[in-house]
């Protein structure tokens, strides 16, 4: 029952994690007459906005580690006994790895609520589910107890199932079912590994597992590799890693804009976060030279490269705007894998930063698919064109977003991609060189999309379309400001991430 003495520390993180659910309960209490006045929307916005402010306060009070000998820098720790029979605790905290993810979640949720402003179908239920999801995602990013992590991981699925299944497009039930079954199937692997760890060590506590009993360290490398790979499969589905990626385009195409934003902006990062936190943290020897069974770093780099290149080619072949961006997500998340496979400071920093940058950029991309779809009611690229003439501000923003997508300097993606390349090049130069060719293919599909949707002559069908409204402008300006601010001065984030990266490397025994 160790509660931190400082006022801010005690329960502040818990407040952030559960505040959205409070907002969600308010939704349920709203009378049906409030719907017409968009009260549910405003309550949801207020909730996400307050959580965002609280996360900012959290970030400002977070102190990056200065102690070079410590492997942990968990702050705002809240730890209570939860299920004593299982020796499981309610144990949450943030460090340099989870803090950027918490910030990203808070940010993306505001944008998602704003993108839902036109929802008229059962808005109270919609926002209630969304708020539950937000709590679950915070829980995933902050849990330090394996059982709590698993519960939060599964908790995220339920609202998502209903959100896609009720508010989605034509094939929404198929997509929702596929998404949920795929992820649930994969999380069975995680449950097995976590239970195995519990029966082997008698604890679910991440800190104890890393410091003392080391998961399966007593059982030999074979078991460790097996457990590591199982855990990675679970996270790979969420990431998504080729060949487990086919749920993603279906889910994106059927999901409403706001859900696509959350899905690509935040939910995919749960996979890569899990890989780094639990895959690397619990099985530190598996990726390093101590593992003589399989060179897993090489295979991870291979899979990352396949993700990058294969995803990019798939994006090039699509005819639906949303599918292009869905597959570009596959490609960009491959950079996270490749960076992790670099197994050095640059690679890991790049991977973690890429999680953040991809979240911010791809959210804008999906936002703009929504902008176009709202006005034209089509996502077929062949039918679109010349929209910049009708929507000059939207056109200008989309050019900027595309530039962020192709990682030009000044945008945060430039730094993360460069770090991933610099890191992975040291260990896997050929794979990195192959992956680097995506700078060409990526520019190809992004600029092609840009050209075919916004430039060129305007088909007469699209005359008189309104430009983006104030709500959409606010969202994109908010995200773009962050993309450019962290792009011009990446130290804003990297000064938080870098110490955490060093600690992960220390856990894994890699010399800095």
């Amino acid at each position, binding site marked *: 029952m160790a509660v931190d003495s400082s006022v801010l520390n005690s329960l502040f993180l818990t407040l952030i994690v559960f505040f959205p659910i409070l907002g969600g309960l308010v939704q349920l209490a709203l009378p049906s007459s409030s719907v017409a006045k968009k009260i549910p929307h405003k309550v949801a916005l207020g909730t996400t906005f307050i959580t965002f402010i609280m996360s900012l306060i959290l970030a400002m009070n977070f102190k990056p580690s200065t102690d070079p000998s410590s492997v942990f820098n968990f702050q705002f720790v809240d730890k209570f006994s939860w299920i004593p029979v299982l020796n499981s605790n309610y144990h949450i905290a943030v460090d340099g790895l989870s803090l950027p993810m918490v910030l990203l979640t808070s940010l993306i949720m505001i944008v998602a609520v704003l993108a839902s402003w036109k929802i008229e179908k059962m808005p109270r239920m919609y926002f209630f589910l969304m708020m539950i999801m937000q709590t679950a995602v915070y829980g995933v990013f902050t849990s330090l107890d394996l059982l709590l992590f698993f519960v939060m991981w599964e908790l995220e699925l339920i609202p998502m199932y209903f959100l896609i299944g009720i508010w989605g497009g034509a094939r929404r039930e198929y997509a929702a079912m*596929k998404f949920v*079954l*795929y992820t649930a199937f994969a999380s069975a692997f995680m449950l097995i590994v976590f239970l195995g760890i519990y029966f082997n060590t008698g604890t679910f506590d991440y800190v104890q597992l890393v410091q003392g009993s080391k998961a399966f360290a007593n059982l030999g490398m074979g078991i460790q590799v097996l457990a590591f790979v199982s855990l990675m499969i679970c996270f790979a589905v969420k990431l998504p890693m080729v*060949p487990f*990626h*086919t*749920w993603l385009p279906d889910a994106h195409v059927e999901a409403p804009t706001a859900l696509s934003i959350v899905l690509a902006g935040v939910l995919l990062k749960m996979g890569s976060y899990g890989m780094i936190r639990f895959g690397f943290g619990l099985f530190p020897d598996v990726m390093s030279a101590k593992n003589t069974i399989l060179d897993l770093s090489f295979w991870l780099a291979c899979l990352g490269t396949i993700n990058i290149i*294969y995803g990019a*080619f*798939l994006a*090039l*072949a*699509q005819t639906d705007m949303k599918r292009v961006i869905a597959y570009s997500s596959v490609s960009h998340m491959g950079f996270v894998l490749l960076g992790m496979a670099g197994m*050095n*400071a*640059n690679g890991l*920093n*790049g991977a973690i930063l890429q999680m953040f940058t991809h979240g911010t950029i791809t959210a804008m991309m999906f936002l703009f698919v929504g902008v176009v779809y709202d006005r034209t009611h089509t996502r077929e690229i062949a039918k679109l064109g*010349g929209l*910049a*003439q009708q929507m000059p501000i939207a*056109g*200008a923003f989309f050019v900027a977003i595309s530039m962020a997508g192709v990682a*030009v*300097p*000044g945008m945060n993606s*430039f*730094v993360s991609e*460069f770090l991933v*390349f*610099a890191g992975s*090049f*040291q260990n896997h*130069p050929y794979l*990195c*060189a192959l992956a*680097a*060719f995506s*700078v*060409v293919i990526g*520019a*190809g599909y992004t*600029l*092609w999309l*840009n*050209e075919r949707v*916004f*430039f*060129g*002559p*305007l088909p007469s069908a699209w005359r008189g379309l309104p430009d983006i409204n104030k709500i959409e402008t606010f969202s994109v300006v908010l995200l773009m400001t962050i993309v450019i601010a962290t792009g011009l*001065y*990446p*130290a804003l984030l*990297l*000064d938080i991430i*870098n110490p955490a*990266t*060093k600690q992960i490397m220390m856990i894994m025994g890699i010399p*800095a």
Partner: protein
Amino acid sequence: MIEFAVKNAWLVALLPLLSSIVITFLTRKSPVLSSRISRAFIFMALTLSSLICYEAVNDIDYVLQNSAGSLRWFTSGSFDFALSWKVDAVTAMMLVVVTLISTLVQLYSREYMEEYIHKGYSFSRYYAELSLFSFSMLLLVLTDNFLVLYAGWELVGVSSFLLIGFFFEKKSAPYAAKKAFLANRVGDFGFLLGILLIFTYTNTLNFDVAAAQIAAGKMTGGVLTLAAILTFFGAMGKSGQFPLHIWLPDAMEGPTPVSALIHAATMVAAGVYMVAKIMTIFAQATFPVLWGFNALDFIAAIGGITAIMAAFIAITQTDIKKILAYSTVSQLGFMILTLGMYSTEGGITPLGYTAGMFHLFTHAFFKAMLFLCSGSVIHACHTQDIFEMGGLRKKMPVTAITCLIGTAAISGAPGFAGFWSKDAMLDAIYEGNMFLFALAAIGATMTAFYMFRLYFLTFEGEYRGHGHPHEPGWRMKFPLIFLAIPSVLIGFVGTPWADYFKDFVHYTPVVKHATEHAAHHGPNWIVMGCSLAIFTVGTGLSFALYGKGDLSKSEALSLKMGGLFKASLNKLYIDEAYLWFIDKFVLAFAKASSLFDKFVIDMIVNVVSWACIGVAHFAKRMHSGNIQQYAMGVIVSVLLLIFAGTNYVYIAKQLPIYWVWITIGLILAVALSVLGYFGNLFKKILDSK
């Protein structure tokens, strides 16, 4: 004031960025104000760079010692990535060239772009993008580290994308913009890998430190050569070298002043500048890789091919801007070829290095002027086809005279700027490689030929168009007249008798040690004779065919040339080859991947889910309620268990054998497929209800 300028050299780059930001966020709605702000800021940058350059000429050591600076950008591991800058002689020269051309182009644009503004294009956007362009170029000129160089490099690509696609409602302009960006990205791909190689081996991004580490043996042999060649890929993209030159002629879709900027100062110069800036690294990459080629051989070969190829294509083009575009490609080829010349001692021949930079310097002035002339002509005639011009000398005397000066300069008329720099280049090539010298001489002859063809067809003879051409206003005339002066005179800073330019560039740390042991090099009379002959022959042929400004003779000749003429007119079918490759390979592969994704990977997922339904279907049938059936199941299971229990040693022995696994796998796959088939059927029956 001078001290301030030198110590705050970063301001030169920051000013245009500031103007871009101010225009975007504050004065977007008032176009005239935006243009004034942009011009004021770039003029301030010009003033600062002039002061820096003045000081560099006076006392280079002071500049070298006081201009450097560095800021921590971000930290990864324990490595600090820095934003750093430093001014040496070449940098000081480039700063002046970039800011001067930018200033003139911005002034010129004020009048040139007016008619487009009336058509609804945003002046503010134009000037914001123009400023961003200057900023990107100045950033890459000022920096002394690879990461910032790469950043500036990419930003140049971005701003050129924005400006080439300025007329975004056309079909061709966004297409050309995308093409430029992609061709550049292909080069950048190699550039990035080159930087990564150098970074991995030397663990530094600073040019000088990296060069010193390489000299100390941190990186040798094939890897170094490979790194140098990969880095040069970037220059091939930006400086339009074969086979990545395809974007440059298409980039003419942008407004003409932008073309002037791209072709003279801000973009294509970047590649040449980069090669010169890190020449110490290239010069050390002497290990031969392919067919005995080392890095500088490769550079020279690419430059030579580009120079002659582009000149060959330029001969038959009829679009005034395309001729100038190909002439730029060709001239850049000359510069790259010259930079690739090295002496056998292993150091760099200062001749090649200084001559290449000298031509970059002089070329900037007359090429900018030629483009601005073409803009003036297009502004007046509303066409770009030189066959629809003619006789403009009487109607637009200022444009005609400045254009003639530019033509004379680029063709190497004795005394003009281009003569001295071209002579220096030929001299360097002559010392290096006779075959390439012959190639360069032919290329230079063609240059004189097609440039005078352009001049004669545009300004001499009778007017063949239908408009009412007239001279533009002072904002357009002033840059033309202003640029005419250096086009004539600037060459005199680098004559073989008194080579001030070489002495100046000499102080760049890159070449300092190499030049010190180079003997003083007087005029080479053979080469100078060749230069004269080249100019005479090229101009003479051109005069004979087009001197009267009519097309009859040349048309007859073009019919006789047949295939050669067609090949030149169709740009050697290089664009077609690219399109064929992209269509038949890249897009075909993308489509194949898409089908694979849908019908293999996703199908497996579906089959698994159908198999579950199939299992459920069979399992449901087993629960028939028939006691005999249950008892049978129990008996069979028990027997199987007994069999397995008694033979487990045998089974365990069989397990490591591969065919056992293959059989099990096959059985599972068949079972999965069968179950999936039934599951799918069952699902369809369910769905049909």
